[in-house]
């Protein structure tokens, strides 16, 4: 790309003008203009949730539980605050764009939720700063840290610094449809030990009429679900990784193995290649699983909690607890997973961060921790279960749901996280495209070479590529 690394005066003027001039004005989104008309200290919190829409529970919990209690508690301490919730409820990309624009204009909510993988790019753009730089020494005093395991805490880290508090995490497993397994003569306590075991089970399922044996997400239409539920669990299962430090792996034997697995699935009728192309393909895979037309599905615990959950799911299964089995994703073969593991998983999660421009850093941090108290998390979950960031909460909450207990106890110890680097989204897209090509019939080795070239394009040269 032959970048002329020169910041012209004009660049500075045009790109800088907006934010510089903004520093002075108190637009409604400007946190530093944050004095309520009644003299109260005004704070705002934003997540990608909205009452009556996407993540409605979360929105209602923040509005009706967290905020009133936080305001009352502050008042008891003699501080008059007013907290506003800024809901969104849109696609993650759009939510991210909006936050980035707000932060660029040195405005935006005081506390906000980011996807863990955005940390790097937001930090590099100086949209966010390490937590202790924003909130000061009080950060370390928060009692909650002891309950958050270092592994989960790493979700909120970038280049060794902590930027916020993680808001729970998740895990990826293989789901299987027990009645179909029974009909095909497969065990109800299925736990594959290798990729070969998965393929064997799929071949057996293939004998059933009208059943797609296996769904491993592929292609660009599935978006991040392809990378998260497909490529990365397989890659770590083959002992590979996508990045080390700030350098990315290119055409590696592990990647070729992953693409070879995709070939075996989609070229021998074990998966439905059309489904990988459809704009609503993922929704359809959910429906098919719920209707007993899909045998094995690699998904996150979200699938269990929100999709096939008997009462509230979008593709509810009345007999979920009886009919749905779950197993860890096996490594390619015993001990071949990353770090010599037999099984692997992938995890992600949101992180709550502070706006570096907040006018009331102490209160903003207090609000941040209020979102992560044990009581607050228990109130949030009610009767539902979820893997939260706090061990003390998990200990009691997960008892309600053996599946989530399984995720926390079995999957989390072998899980990996995605690198929080700015280039991640582009690399992830390149991986999705590679799987799409294999599904469309190209040879894995050839596609892996193509991926290497695509990486060069995306990263602007080979400096950041290994292999």
């Amino acid at each position, binding site marked *: 790309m032959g970048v002329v690394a020169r910041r012209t005066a004009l660049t500075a003027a045009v790109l800088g003008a907006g934010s510089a001039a903004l520093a002075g*004005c108190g637009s*409604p989104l400007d946190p530093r203009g944050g004095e309520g008309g009644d003299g109260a200290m005004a704070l705002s919190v934003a997540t990608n949730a909205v009452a009556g*829409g996407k993540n409605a529970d979360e929105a209602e919990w923040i509005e009706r539980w967290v905020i009133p209690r936080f305001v009352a508690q502050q008042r008891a301490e003699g501080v008059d605050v007013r907290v506003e919730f800024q809901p969104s409820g849109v*696609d993650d990309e759009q939510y991210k764009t909006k936050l980035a624009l707000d932060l660029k204009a040195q405005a935006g909510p005081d506390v906000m939720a980011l996807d863990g993988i955005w940390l790097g790019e937001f930090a590099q753009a100086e949209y966010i700063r390490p937590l202790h730089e924003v909130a000061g020494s009080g950060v370390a005093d928060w009692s909650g840290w002891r309950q958050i395991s270092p592994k989960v805490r790493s979700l909120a880290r970038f280049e060794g610094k902590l930027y916020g508090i993680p808001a729970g995490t998740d895990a990826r497993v293989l789901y299987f449809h027990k009645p179909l397994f029974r009909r095909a003569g497969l065990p109800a306590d299925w736990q594959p030990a290798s990729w070969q075991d998965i393929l064997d089970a799929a071949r057996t399922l293939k004998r059933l009429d009208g059943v797609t044996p296996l769904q491993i997400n592929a292609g660009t239409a599935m978006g991040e679900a392809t990378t998260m539920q497909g490529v990365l669990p397989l890659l770590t299962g083959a002992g590979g990784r996508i990045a080390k430090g700030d350098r990315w792996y290119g055409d590696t034997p592990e990647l070729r193995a992953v693409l070879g697995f995709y070939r075996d699935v989609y070229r021998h009728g074990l998966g439905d290649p059309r489904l990988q192309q459809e704009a609503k393909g993922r929704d359809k895979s959910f429906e098919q699983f719920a209707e007993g037309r899909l045998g094995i599905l690699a998904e996150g615990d979200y699938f269990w909690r*929100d999709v096939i959950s008997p009462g509230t799911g979008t593709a509810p299964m009345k007999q979920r607890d009886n009919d749905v089995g779950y197993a860890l994703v096996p490594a390619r073969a015993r001990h071949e997973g990353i770090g010599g593991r037999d099984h692997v998983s992938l995890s992600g999660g949101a992180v709550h961060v502070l706006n570096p421009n907040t006018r009331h850093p102490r209160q903003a941090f207090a609000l941040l921790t209020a979102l992560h108290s044990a009581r607050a998390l228990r109130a949030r979950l009610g009767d539902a279960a979820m893997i939260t960031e706090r061990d003390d909460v998990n200990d009691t909450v997960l008892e309600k749901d053996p599946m989530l207990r399984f995720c926390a106890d079995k999957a989390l110890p072998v899980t990996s996280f995605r690198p929080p680097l700015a280039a991640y989204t582009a690399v992830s897209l390149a991986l999705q495209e590679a799987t799409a090509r294999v599904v469309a019939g190209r040879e894995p080795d050839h596609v892996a070479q193509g991926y290497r070239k695509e990486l060069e394009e995306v990263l602007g040269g080979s400096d950041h590529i290994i292999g």
Partner: protein
Amino acid sequence: MRTPANPAAALLRGVGVYLLVALTLAFFALPMLWLASAPFDKHPGITVSLPDFTLANFERLWNNPNAVDSLASSLILAGGSAVLVVGLSALAAYALSRVHIRGRDGLLYALLLLSSIVTGTAAMVPIFLLAAELDLVDSYLGVVLVLTGGLLPAAIFILKDFMDTTPRSYEESARVFGASPLRVMKDIVVPVVRPGLATVGVWTVAQVWGNFLIPFLLLRSPDKSPAAVVMYTFYTEGGQPDLALISTFSLLYSLPVVLMFLFVSRRYGFRFHGGIKA
């Protein structure tokens, strides 16, 4: 091909034409069927079927905290933009039609081309920073002005074309009687070009009504979100559509534009060129 001489051929032709018309009618009607069935279905799916009738979806929508209010926001945005676009483009188009300004057509077309940049996604940062600078973030006015700026060139383009075809003789005689230009415009030109204004107005409302990106980027308070933005929130964490809410809201969301269209077409006529022929 020739004018059919015998009645049998004429009949055949007539049948052929009506067959085509019937097909066209079906082509336009069929995709809309879902809007008529899904909102009333207990378990709306993607398939059009005779609904398992219920009004529960409407009740759910009514209880949704944002749905009904968002229509009011949409009305404000669409109404404000329509007034501005119609008013400003009528004035400009009239002047441009009646008085020659050098480079007029070139300028108009250049603006039309530029408008395609601003309506695209690449311009969002400049638009956002501009709005922030003018303190127009989270205000209806900001959205209205940005949208109006994007729609004006095409509106002027259409209206000027329209004004070019209207006869000048009335204006000349009014002028002889000493009417001021504004008065001439109001009393003579506007009545003649009313269907054109109506068309541009409806077009503006339809554009603003469906616009997601600009209000999404510029508005912050949840109670200001228009329907186009709220429509996008009826998805789950994993991006699955809540079809009961979406179908029902689609119907409600479409209704105002349909009513407006019916009203405008009754009241003002709805075509490009008016009744008076010179």
